[in-house]
């Protein structure tokens, strides 16, 4: 019996494909395409998924798996990008907003805030040690652009639980990032 031979090759094909596709999407946004609001990350990930799903309808339907992977890859790409541009800025006279400055701006105001992705990544790594599932929810929401319900489906908890997890994670991460910013 070798029913599972098929899905190994599916995953084989999946990883590089998802990666390339998302890298392309992320780069498109990073190259300034993000200002065009028709390119919403969620839409893009869905688009990537559709392309991927079309490749082989029979084997590649693991939607859940796809989105989880997508979020993971997106996180990696964006953090890498943030690290790179941070090191590029070092030495130059770039002014970095402190976290409070960046975060305390009113939400309605001009979107001039900068979120420190590297600090967020560090805080998320710490959260993962306390509660890996909760960290995954953050990853799916923030990096994967998924809704609460979609994230809930992926980690297989109820939407109500996912909402709680998300709300408490946000607060916790905010605290961690403020602490690291004031040190």
């Amino acid at each position, binding site marked *: *019996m*070798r*029913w*599972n*031979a*098929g*899905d*190994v090759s599916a*995953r084989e094909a999946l*990883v590089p*494909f998802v990666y*390339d596709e998302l890298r392309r999407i992320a780069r*498109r*946004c*990073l*190259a*300034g*395409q*993000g*200002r*065009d609001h*028709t390119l*919403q*990350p969620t839409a893009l990930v869905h688009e990537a998924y559709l*392309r991927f799903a*079309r490749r082989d309808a*029979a084997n590649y*339907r*693991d*939607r*859940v*798996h796809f989105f989880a992977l997508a979020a993971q890859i*997106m996180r990696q790409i*964006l953090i890498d*990008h*943030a690290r790179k541009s941070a090191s590029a800025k070092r030495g130059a006279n770039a002014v970095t907003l402190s976290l409070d400055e960046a*975060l*305390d701006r*009113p*939400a309605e105001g001009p*979107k*001039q*805030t*900068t*979120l420190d*992705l590297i600090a*967020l990544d560090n805080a998320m790594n710490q959260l993962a040690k*306390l509660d890996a599932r909760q960290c995954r929810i*953050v990853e799916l929401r*923030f990096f994967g652009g998924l809704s609460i319900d979609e994230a809930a489906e992926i*980690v*297989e908890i109820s939407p109500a639980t996912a909402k*709680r997890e998300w*709300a*408490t994670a*946000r*607060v*916790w991460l*905010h605290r961690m990032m*403020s602490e690291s910013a004031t040190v």
Partner: protein
Amino acid sequence: MNPERWQKVKDVLAEAMEVNPVDREACLDRRCAGDASLRREVQILLDHESGAGSRFLNETALSEVSVTLLAAEQAPVIGRQFGAYKTVKQIGLGGMGEVYRAYRADDEYRKEVALKVVRGGQDSEFVVTRFKKERQILAGLEHPNIARLLDGGTSEDDTPYLVMELVDGQPITDYCDSNALSTHDRLKIFMEVCTAVQYAHQRLIIHRDIKPSNILVTRDGTPKLLDFGIAKILDTDAGSAKPDQTLTIFRALTPQYASPEQVTGEAITTASDVYSLGAVLYELLAGTSPYPNTTNYQDAARMVCEFEPCKPSTVPRLNGKSTLELKSGFSAKTLSFASDRRRNDLKGDLDNIVLMALRKEPQRRYASVEQFAEDIRRYLANLPVMARKDTASYRASKFVLRHKVGLAAATAVVLTVVAGFVITVREARIAQQHFNDVRSLANSLIFDVHDSIKDLPGSTPAKKIIVDRALRYLNNLAQQSGGDVGLQRELASAYERLGSVQGDYLENNLGDAQGALESYKKALEIRERTDAVSKDWNDRLALATGYRLVAHQLWANGDPRGAREPIQRAIAISEALNLAQPGIRKIVDEVGFEYEVSGRIGYPGDLSAKQKILADYRRGMDLGEIAIKLAPDDIRTLHNLAMGAGDIGNILEGFDAREALKYYQREMEIDSQITQRSNDLRYWRSLAIDYGSIASVYDDLGDYSRALENNKKDLEIYQSLLAKDPSNALLRQGLSITYMNTAASAARAGDISVALDDSSQSLEIMRKLVANAPEKAFQRGIFAAMLVVRGTILTIANQPESAIAEIQHGRSIYESLYKAGAGEQVNVAAADVKLGEACSKASHDEVASEYFRQALTIAEPLIPANLDAIYVAADAHSGLGDLSARKAQRAGQSASRRSDWGEARSQYQESLNAWHRIEHPNHTAPNSFQVGDPAIVAKRLRLAESTYSASANSSTRFAKGGASEP
């Protein structure tokens, strides 16, 4: 904090966040009673609730990042030095960056200039190179109506900039409106613009981005064209054609004024400028652009290609006012002309002139800007004009039809790049200067652009355009260059690419298999010629590749016999190369690939085909082993080798299980090596599957305890993987399958209690997976098979009633899959056989017989093509035989006894006939269900035979319970 503590804190925190702020204190008092530090912890976090606000993490990461980038980009850079220039004031902001008023810092006259800072992911080196190339051409543009390009370079932080003559003026549309110019005056100014464009066209320079904001009119009424040739400097990335840049480009293009060919990526010619001029004139006369406004690029692009603009004279009026009036807010008096008089002016000839310039097909527009201007002059002089009314909608629909593919593919974006290449090529061909440019452009068209759009859905027609066009350029160049070997090589590669776009079955293709073959043959011809004059082994290798491609395509086109000769030649060439220069990876890889193709092509009409195919695959694997030695650290190569071994094992499994075992073991060894080096999940899963394959061969060999042992290893890996990643659905599916494999193997080994346990574990997992994703046909098929296997195990365990329920469930899934076109009908028949067997065990003989007959009704039409169906027939007949034999036994001495034995005999005979059809009988059918044993059927046939012959008068008793014999 530790995880347990955090769970506690989180619980309280969540509750506190959910209650009304007023009740918070009370809530905390209650939840944290006696635990002050818990309360403190929660309180600190609650304080951050407002700090986090609504935005924190609620915008996705990507939009956060783009906001940051946007902020950085839009910061004006006043007072900064760009080369010798210093910026004074921002005067414009466009898709490509900002424009500043600046002056030359070292110039005592402080002459002011316009300085354009180029943003948006443009590679600065590229812009500068392009600028240098274009500078000479653009420097030659000396015309009173053209703003000059003065300088360019990169700033200290590598931002490219361009310096242009500063023009103080208003966009032509604004100028005409604010001065309330008459139609006549508008046409006069417009004609001046035309002379400037015409002047540039004579020098083979196309503007490519004519729009009102690029035509400024100074206070004294002189129109000046800005940004001549700039679009080209910024647009096309000849050197690298990076996909991101292709995306930035389209933003620079203004769809309202861009021609259909620009939007779809067809060749840009002077007619494109004619079109854009037409769009500007339309706006000057009608007060609005020819197409409805939209901010979405795709919509705008589609509009340009499909939407037929209405006549300028019939532009709809809003609330009795023309758009012009609404926009400028001028009094009715100053605009008197704009209402009725101008409307009358526009009717007839002027409508026709504008619409002729705006025609979708370039060749149906004015042949030149000069003709366009001439027609306007004739109109002003009251002479008959060239422009005639167009049967426009008919024409437009034709255009759309022709271009639908391109548009639907949404590749317009990418194709704008192509547009850039085309014009360069055109110029170069005339100028005979940029020979090498053209060559590199054509190549980058084929390789970079093609690759960058490879995976876009629907991009295939676009790929064809690209490759086709590039091929044309290369062909031209090849003719001009005589025997330049380098060019010949490029031409051959281009043909190979074209072939792959046309019909490579492994990639999205145009379905033109014959065309693909032609292209591969052309490539091969060139490779032959090149190899004949070259001493480079790379050319020999390319020749082998050429033969391989032709062979592969012939096979794909349904001519495996024809494919044999070229693949043999390919192998002969590259084997010789490999012998002469051993240890070169490029060669080793090619030979390996050729053997794989050779095996796939097969040896039609050859009696020892199977051996030869295996020999090919084996040689391919040997070469893989060499490749590993050349690149021992390349996990990918190792993995390929492992898969190669698995493929051979797979072929052998059907007829030589022992040999298959060797290859599966080799596969397992390699995969274990890989898993020692990489923790990548997929390699661990491969390893687990290797154990499963080995187990299945042991099953075939009847070594059930070894089979069980290997299945357990398979199971262990899955369990440990899942422990690390418990929510991974794919892993759980794998675990479920492995449980079932182990159960089946245990059942065969006679360990019924393990079989029952593991099969029930398996089903429990699978049931949840199916409930979570009922839309997955593939998974439901697995589930159905598992239910049937579980039923078979229950039958063996003497629980036939439970077995019947499970198998019936499986059967109904198979049936619905079959009806939905997602499964094979033979599976339904296979489930029927298992149902028959379970019913037979439960002594529901009538029902059992019905199931067996139903199975035969389905299976018989599928024989002999379907191996599963043959197994179904074999088992159904033997099941029927058992039922008749049992009936005969019960019949005692009655008259029917003899005929029952006769029936049993003929059913067993039918079963054996079916078994004889199977070349390599196995105890599992390809669909993975366990099946009967021909030896047992033969034994029963002999018994039925002898009892039947003897039953005429004696009373031989049939051996105890034929049907229940294992």
